[in-house]
């Protein structure tokens, strides 16, 4: 017989102490580096990459490969960009473009999510349109424009049509893949604790699908932004100046400096929005413990 037969209270006290000791030894108490250090460590490679890119660009210009009026260097383009940032027309164009981007993206988000959820849940729908969605995802959005222009003319709706078609399949696929890859153990655990029907989706399956869904949202944004730029170059709506049509205008008037400045703007907007999605992604994965703390 065990020698340490004790009263319950004493046993519990001892057990509590032993657990506390073991937990302290075992728990991953990751120490977080300071905020400034974190920002610096993520920022400097980006700054270095920008400096490198500008350097290569300038080197190509200096090599005399093309005439200066065709391919101006950063020394010419950056001042033009700065000037551009001071004009009201430019900001009007940006706001129209961004409004289109947001509207189109939100529409794609709603449509893509509803279709994704339906396809993930309904077996028949999956076998019917599952591969079609992936097919749509690979289709270059610019190929939709002839049809869009036929259907809607040179209007906002033609642009929206293509932006939604560009982004929705990625978003739907992200949700489908997320639901597909929910570990069966999670679903079993959810069922055991009393989640069923809508509750199972609300509390278990959809949260579990979130990381993959966010990856789909991120990819959807990239497609939406590309489709929008293609649309603004092709579909120029009267009295609706946008970044795309400013770009087209700059080319028509051979203002290559303005053209390159606008291209930088397009790139920067794309990167900034992508960073927001990247942040969301990292935050989720950190919370879930999917990121190694030793990184």
């Amino acid at each position, binding site marked *: 017989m065990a020698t340490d037969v004790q009263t319950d209270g004493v046993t519990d006290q001892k*057990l509590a102490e032993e657990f506390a000791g*073991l937990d302290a030894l075992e728990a991953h108490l990751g120490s977080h580096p300071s905020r400034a250090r974190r920002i610096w460590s993520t920022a400097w490679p980006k700054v270095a990459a920008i400096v490198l890119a500008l350097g290569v660009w300038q080197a190509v210009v200096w090599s005399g490969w093309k005439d200066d009026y065709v391919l101006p260097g950063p020394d010419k383009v950056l001042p033009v960009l700065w000037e551009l940032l001071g004009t009201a027309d430019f900001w009007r164009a940006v706001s129209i473009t961004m409004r289109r981007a947001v509207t189109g993206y939100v529409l794609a988000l709603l449509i893509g999510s509803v279709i994704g959820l339906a396809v993930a849940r309904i077996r028949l729908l999956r076998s019917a349109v599952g591969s079609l969605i992936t097919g749509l995802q690979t289709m270059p959005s610019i190929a939709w424009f002839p049809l869009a222009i036929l259907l809607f003319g040179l209007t906002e709706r033609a642009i929206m049509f293509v932006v939604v078609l560009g982004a929705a399949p990625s978003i739907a696929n992200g949700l489908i893949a997320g639901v597909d890859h929910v570990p069966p153990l999670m679903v079993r655990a959810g069922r*055991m604790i009393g989640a069923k029907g809508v509750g199972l989706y609300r*509390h278990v399956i959809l949260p579990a699908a979130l990381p993959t869904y966010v990856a789909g949202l991120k990819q959807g944004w990239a497609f939406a932004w590309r489709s929008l730029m293609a649309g603004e170059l092709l579909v120029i709506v009267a009295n609706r100046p946008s970044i795309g049509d400013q770009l087209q205008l700059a080319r028509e008037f051979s203002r290559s400096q303005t053209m390159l400045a606008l291209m930088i703007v397009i790139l920067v907007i794309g990167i900034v929005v992508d960073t927001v999605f990247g942040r969301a992604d990292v935050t989720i994965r950190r*919370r879930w413990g999917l990121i190694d703390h030793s990184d």
Partner: protein
Amino acid sequence: MTITATPVTAPQTTTAISLRGVSKAFGRHGDAVVALDNITLDVSRGEFVCLVGASGCGKSTSLNLIAGLDRPTVGDVTVQGRTALMFQEAALFPWLTVRDNVALPLRLAGMGRADRHRRADDLLEQVHLGGQGGRRPHELSGGMRQRAALARALAQEAEILLMDEPFGALDAMTRDLLHDELEQVWSSTGLTIVFVTHNVREAARLSDRIVLLTSLPGKVADEFPVAIARPRRIDSPEVMGLAAAVTDRLRAEVRRHGDDMAMGHRHGDDMAMGHSHSDDAHGD
């Protein structure tokens, strides 16, 4: 075949779980695998029963039947009261804090936020995780996660706790403490526990009764009442002695399968048996 899950209205009945001639086959017709063959087993209210067996003895299948996650092919499963199930992995949800994980069954049952948080904190306190409620599951060690899973199971207010090798992946030290913990929770709550393990010593340490299952198909081979006073230690002579006897019986069963190798049956060599003497005279 019938499955009855009756809420406890008649506490005078002493049987919590009753399997009557239960068989379970997977697959169809010719190539069907019989996981359970004519199992009859009663578990009394408040009893702690361990199911022990080699691979393929249908331990997990039995739990699924009792939990109502699966239906028997033949026979009756009667369960008095609600069941909670714990797995080898804690299966906590990574998107919730530890507290919200424990509170989720309460939330699904419609309890308000303040009430369920208070209750979750109490339960965490009970499993010695007080003050850890705000952390994320990945920040906890394996043993802490299993304790959180235990708290979540307790939150379901179930009368029956089913455990499927819950400590199988833990180190010996942590497992030892969790045995103490589980024994304490069991004795303070009056839960009925069905605990599946392939660790014979664990079974002797914890249970009131060890049910030994044969493999392919799973049948009840033998039962061992555990009449050792609590609290127990896994390394006490009584526990080790009983474990040795059960192991001998188990090995005899496994040997019988070795003789059937021509039938293509699997060896039970991946089970963890206690460090007992290997010679035995029980082979039949």
